[in-house]
């Protein structure tokens, strides 16, 4: 009896030892890509980030991380005064965990926050960066609440209200008099935020929404009821302010019921072409508003896409470009403000705020000549693309 217990204990101890060895490997790989060439003694600028690296939203967090790491490696290779140390923690897109990850980064000695990736988590964490006076630039948290009342928080992406308004304007101008239907996720802040603003703007432009159908987060396998409603209302354009996973199911089911409207997506639709098991022919003719087109002929974009593909063996999505832009915007502003890495957070924060609101402009992958207003919102032009032959084509 006694020996069997000891044996059991040994087996478990061995298993644990193995896990920790693996974990150590994973950990060292992880940090290795972050601080390439960071020599001991050299001045270091610590940029922290937080986003979902595991769970349902991990595709966004991982893309931001990879895009940012490319930017960090590029900067570290050419910058001689200091090196950027980039660390990204996993918050699973959860507000409570984003507080933990931010505090972890605080213990690590964060100087500038690049994040967080998702909206809900960002609102929670930015309340803390505001208190601690840490400058924050989020690549992709798009709600207006992210920046509201916080002078230290800036966005690289469009706000949800802006996206809804721009989409409504575009549809009203380019498809006058056509019947518009909307399918949105009423338990998702992103989707509902865009829909509410789309509806207000579209109706003020004299448009009429023929049918608006919602679905909760938990049902993402069957949309035939919503599609039937669209079809019977005769909607010629279906606006989908949702992420691409449910959108792919909607397109599939629409085809099965011989319903072929023009689907119009927003930036959450970006990534649909890379989805595993998705027949890209279904997405033919889908229009989407996205700030980033990986098939663009722009030189900087092409260089980034090539580097990204070489490193990670996949086509970068908009979130990767957002992460890349966020790091470069921070770096450029930091240099332009003449800051040094040994200054306290408060000074860096104030100088960066002055820089961002004082006419600082940045040419990035997700928009040329981006500028920021004092509310922290970015000003750039959205691009409407249409999917043709499996790639995005600018409209």
């Amino acid at each position: 009896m006694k020996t069997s217990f000891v044996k059991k204990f040994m087996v478990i101890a061995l298993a644990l030892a193995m896990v920790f060895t693996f974990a150590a490997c994973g950990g060292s790989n992880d940090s290795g890509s972050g601080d390439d060439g960071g020599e001991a003694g050299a001045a270091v600028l610590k940029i922290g980030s937080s986003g979902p690296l595991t769970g349902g939203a991990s595709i966004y967090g991982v893309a931001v991380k990879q895009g940012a790491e490319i930017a960090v490696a590029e900067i570290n290779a050419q910058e001689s005064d200091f090196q950027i140390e980039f660390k990204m923690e996993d918050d699973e897109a959860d507000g409570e965990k984003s507080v933990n990850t931010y505090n972890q980064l605080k213990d690590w000695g964060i100087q500038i926050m690049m994040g967080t990736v998702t909206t809900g988590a960002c609102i929670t964490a930015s309340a803390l960066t505001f208190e601690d006076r840490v400058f924050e630039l989020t690549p992709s948290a798009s709600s207006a609440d992210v920046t509201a009342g916080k002078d230290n928080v800036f966005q690289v992406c469009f706000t949800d209200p802006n996206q809804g308004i721009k989409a409504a304007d575009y549809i009203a101008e380019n498809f006058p008099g056509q019947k518009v239907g909307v399918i949105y996720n009423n338990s998702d802040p992103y989707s509902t935020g865009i829909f509410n603003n789309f509806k207000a703007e579209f109706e003020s432009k004299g448009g009429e929404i023929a049918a608006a159908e919602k679905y909760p987060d938990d049902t993402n396998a069957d949309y035939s009821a919503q599609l039937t409603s669209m079809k019977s209302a005769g909607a010629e354009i279906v606006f989908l302010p949702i992420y691409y996973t449910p959108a792919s199911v909607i397109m599939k089911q629409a085809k099965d019921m011989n319903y072929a409207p023009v689907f119009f997506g927003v930036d959450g639709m970006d990534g649909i072409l890379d989805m595993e098991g998705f027949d890209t022919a279904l997405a033919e003719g889908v229009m989407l508003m996205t700030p980033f087109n990986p098939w663009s002929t722009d030189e900087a974009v092409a260089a980034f896409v090539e580097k990204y593909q070489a490193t990670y063996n996949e086509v970068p999505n908009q979130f990767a470009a957002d992460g890349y832009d966020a790091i470069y915007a921070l770096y450029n502003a930091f240099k332009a403000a003449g800051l040094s890495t040994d200054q306290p957070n408060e000074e860096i924060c104030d100088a960066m705020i002055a820089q961002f609101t004082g006419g600082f402009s940045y040419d990035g992958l997700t928009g040329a000549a981006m500028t920021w207003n004092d509310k922290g919102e970015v000003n750039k032009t959205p691009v409407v693309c249409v999917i043709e032959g499996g790639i995005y084509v600018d409209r």
Partner: protein
Amino acid sequence: MKMKIKNGRLSPYTKNSIISYGIVIIAFVVVSVLNGMGLVSSTLQGQLVPICAYIIMAVSLNLVVGISGELSLGHAGFMSAGAFTAIVVSGMLEASDMPVIARFAIAVVCGAIVAGVLGFLIGIPVLRLRGDYLAIVTLAFGEIIKNIMNIVYAGVDSHGFHLRANPDLGLEESGRMLLNGPMGATAVQRLSTFTAGFVLVLITLFVVQNIMNSKQGRAIMACRDNRIAAESIGLNVMKYKLMAFTVSAALAGMGGALFGLNFSTLLPIKFNFNTSVLILVFVVLGGLGNIWGSIIAATILTVLPEVLRQFADYRMLAYAIVLILVMIFTYSPKIKNFTQNFMENTFRKKDKKPEAEGGAAV
């Protein structure tokens, strides 16, 4: 707390209550002192209030699962009701010049009352079911509460309070949105403090342990252990089960209020099935009916994922392994014997004193 001394030894109830209060008070003092000396990391500091909230959730769920013996999978629903009620109440009182502590107290009490009433109403149909059916229906009610919160919009302006199921509240310019459907509550004033959390944990312990150690508590446990026998001696099973369920829901509302007022944003989706299961894991790992076990399990399992961050991608794997190890070790008969012997040896020595002074103590 009644001290019961039988045959010169502390009754198991009293012993367990002393352990529970002791753990909480000592932990509070130690953490406060360390915090004053600046030795507590930001990470732990940020987790103190959530830990208190989860302890309250675990202890209150233990009342239903451990003491009353009904598997409830919808505890996060009551947490949600309490949290959003507290946020709305606190937001409405923001304009008044009431002291923060009073505002917090009113918000927490309202959260507890709303969750308690909800628990009572849900309990009436649900507790007519038994076993798996009860678990499934509580799960459904948890989801219903979550989905209702997804369509509730509330705001406040000079005309007073507005509550509707669509975003068009017709608020004045100066008005403020308090609940914004799936976007939840934003710009919440963070009122929760560690001290407030500590006090609420003590209140929870006081309520739950006194129920356990009362006539009603023994009736609840009798219904759990043998329903037919309990009915045959004239106990109203439904009444006692409903009592445990309602008290548990009210305490969960209190925990939710503490949790909700600790973050500047709160999304309804936070209180989904996973959160209910997380709380159930605290209870099961701490031991059904074991209050101090729930306290320790809730604390460790809240801190653990953060401590394991150094394992990067293998974090959740390590977390799962720890869970399995805890299950194996705490439920292994050998370990149980060992701890029991250890506890008995140490307590017997201390227990000798009251035996000697037995006459004076009684």
